[in-house]
């Protein structure tokens, strides 16, 4: 890889991390100003995971995402406008407003969708890898899930099959230390990596705040998975800055402000990477600030667009229940 290419890669990674953070800041604002329907789960703090991994993937590679899915969606190539439209339930959203934050999908970029069932996409990701195998495609699939999801039995069922059949899937456990209002130690016995290893799956624990480390390791594993050496398991140590969801504001009963401050001040993936870019002379402060501003402006414009956009027509309510029936509720004539 040439220096030039690397530079582009680095800047794109930085840009994508900032795009995620900026997206989330806007989504949070929409919630706080009561402009967004329902609740949503912020990815802020975990950007290096989604970006480090997705930058190692091709557009044809697949991912499955989670309830905390905006980061994966942006990192896999989605556009702000369709994303905000989706979050607001508008017709121009990726899912015509039918999915919302917890089901946002972007099949044009290989994002098979967020999932509101914790662990619910583990089978789907494994199946996408199965497809690659059966149809002789070289796609690799990354399955994102949280530490909490390691408690779901489904994970062990599909890891077993993936291991037996050497499927090109990478299980990426985003260990942010909590599932909802509970610390990981209280709900996970033993070792998460060892659980994958027991199925004969190569597992790695990585610093999820270091986008370069995540990216380098993922690149290697993706190439190996393409060659049939998969599956692999990653445990990415990270942190969510917000509450479990946007409404989880008073959270000192389960974690301290000090702990949050420590992660934000000392381990922020964007700040870290930005300093490195500057130190290495890959980008100047001005350039970076300009990029940040541009992204902010993009986001603001997308939010405005989405706020003004149309809701789906009520006639859409029974469309897309089945592929071959325009209106599912139109009964056969009596």
């Amino acid at each position: 890889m040439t220096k030039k290419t690397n530079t582009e890669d680095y800047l794109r990674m930085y840009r994508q991390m900032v795009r995620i953070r900026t997206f989330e800041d806007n989504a949070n604002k929409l919630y706080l100003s009561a402009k967004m329907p329902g609740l949503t789960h912020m990815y802020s703090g975990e950007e290096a995971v989604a970006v480090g991994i997705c930058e190692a993937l091709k557009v044809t590679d697949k991912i499955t995402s989670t309830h905390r899915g905006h980061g994966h969606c942006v990192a896999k190539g989605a556009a702000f406008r369709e994303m905000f439209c989706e979050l607001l339930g508008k017709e121009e959203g990726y899912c015509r407003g039918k999915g919302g934050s917890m089901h946002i999908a972007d099949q044009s970029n290989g994002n098979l969708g967020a999932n509101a069932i914790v662990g619910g996409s583990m089978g789907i990701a494994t199946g996408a890898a199965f497809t690659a195998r059966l149809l002789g495609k070289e796609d690799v699939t990354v399955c994102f899930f949280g530490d909490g999801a390691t408690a779901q039995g489904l994970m062990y069922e599909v890891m077993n099959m993936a291991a037996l059949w050497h499927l090109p899937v990478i299980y990426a456990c985003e260990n942010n230390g909590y599932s909802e209002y509970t610390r990981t130690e209280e709900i996970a016995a033993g070792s998460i990596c060892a659980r994958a290893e027991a199925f004969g799956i190569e597992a790695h624990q990585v610093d999820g705040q270091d986008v370069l480390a995540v990216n380098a390791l993922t690149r290697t594993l993706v190439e190996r998975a393409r060659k049939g050496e998969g599956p692999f398991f990653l445990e990415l140590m990270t942190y969510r800055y917000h509450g479990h969801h946007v409404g989880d504001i008073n959270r000192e009963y389960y974690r301290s402000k000090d702990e949050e401050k420590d992660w934000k001040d000392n381990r922020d993936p964007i700040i870290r990477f930005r300093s490195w870019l500057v130190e290495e002379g890959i980008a100047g402060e001005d350039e970076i600030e300009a990029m940040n501003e541009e992204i902010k402006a993009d986001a603001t414009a997308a939010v405005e667009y989405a706020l003004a956009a149309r809701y789906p027509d009520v006639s859409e309510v029974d469309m897309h229940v089945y592929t071959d029936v325009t209106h599912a509720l139109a009964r056969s004539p009596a």
Partner: protein
Amino acid sequence: MRQITLSQAVNEALAEEMRRDERVFIIGEDVAEAGTPFKVLSGLVEEFGTARVVDTPIAEPGFMGLAVGAAMTGTRPVVDLMFGDFIYLIMDQLCNQAAKTHYMSGGKLNVPLVLRTNLGATRRSAAQHSQSLHALVAHIPGLKVAMPSSAYEAKGLMKTAIRDDNPVVIFEDKLMYNDKAPVPEEEFLIPFGAANIKREGRDITLIGTSSMVQVCEAAADLLAQEGISAEVIDPRTIVPLDEATLLASARKTSRVIVVDEGHQSYGVTGEIASRINEQAFYHLDAPVLRMGAMDVPVPFSPALEDITVPTPEGVAAQARKLMAGEMIHAAE
């Protein structure tokens, strides 16, 4: 009488029963310090400790199975399933194990277990957090199914459920947790299988489950303005179902609408309507009508979600048609 929220009512029911019987415990995700995401259980862990208010990993089949085994061996678990939509995950433990153990053992083993969960759309929670899946469990012999329609009902039915020696599933409407209703300070229980005539009427019977009772009452208000007198009945438990009360009302009014928030097809409305048709057919002036949720996954967009569930206006409109004899033509 004092007014408390449905949340508080459930909380009180649990606290009272846990004080009364030390075999009762609560198990589920974030039930202890967090008191559940809906905060229904706040304060219980402080009184009863983490041995009896047990936070689990996110492993619904696992803790449901654990509860079945605990119930079989002498405890009385109350399982907290955070969203009714997760019931799919525990169907095997609930329907193959809990529901059948007493029967398969020829009456020797019991499973005195309560599964507390919820239902209800219009919370902008999209397709996997908005379902009303009570019909699925009502279909399985061996389970009892309670559908509280107010804080009062929630308390009385929960206490009965906990004392029942069979597996009972209680569906709370998650949009009603903050709704207040008069609830006596003194202890009370509400028996299973005894429907509640919420309002007497002459012309038409509106049968509603869970929050649809309120929808029926609001519809009855609308109809009253037009001189139509609607009787509103809350079956309280759909298994066992108090047929007698429903039939008596149907025979009296000769017109019935059944309203339920589950999907309409192959759901609760068909069963209740059929039982009435079967047994009160010759008293009916018109077919029993059914209003369930639309047969579509619950859409996220507020523009779509709100039209998927029955509303007072919708119920009143159907009632007017029934009164006007319009169904004869509709049926052609």
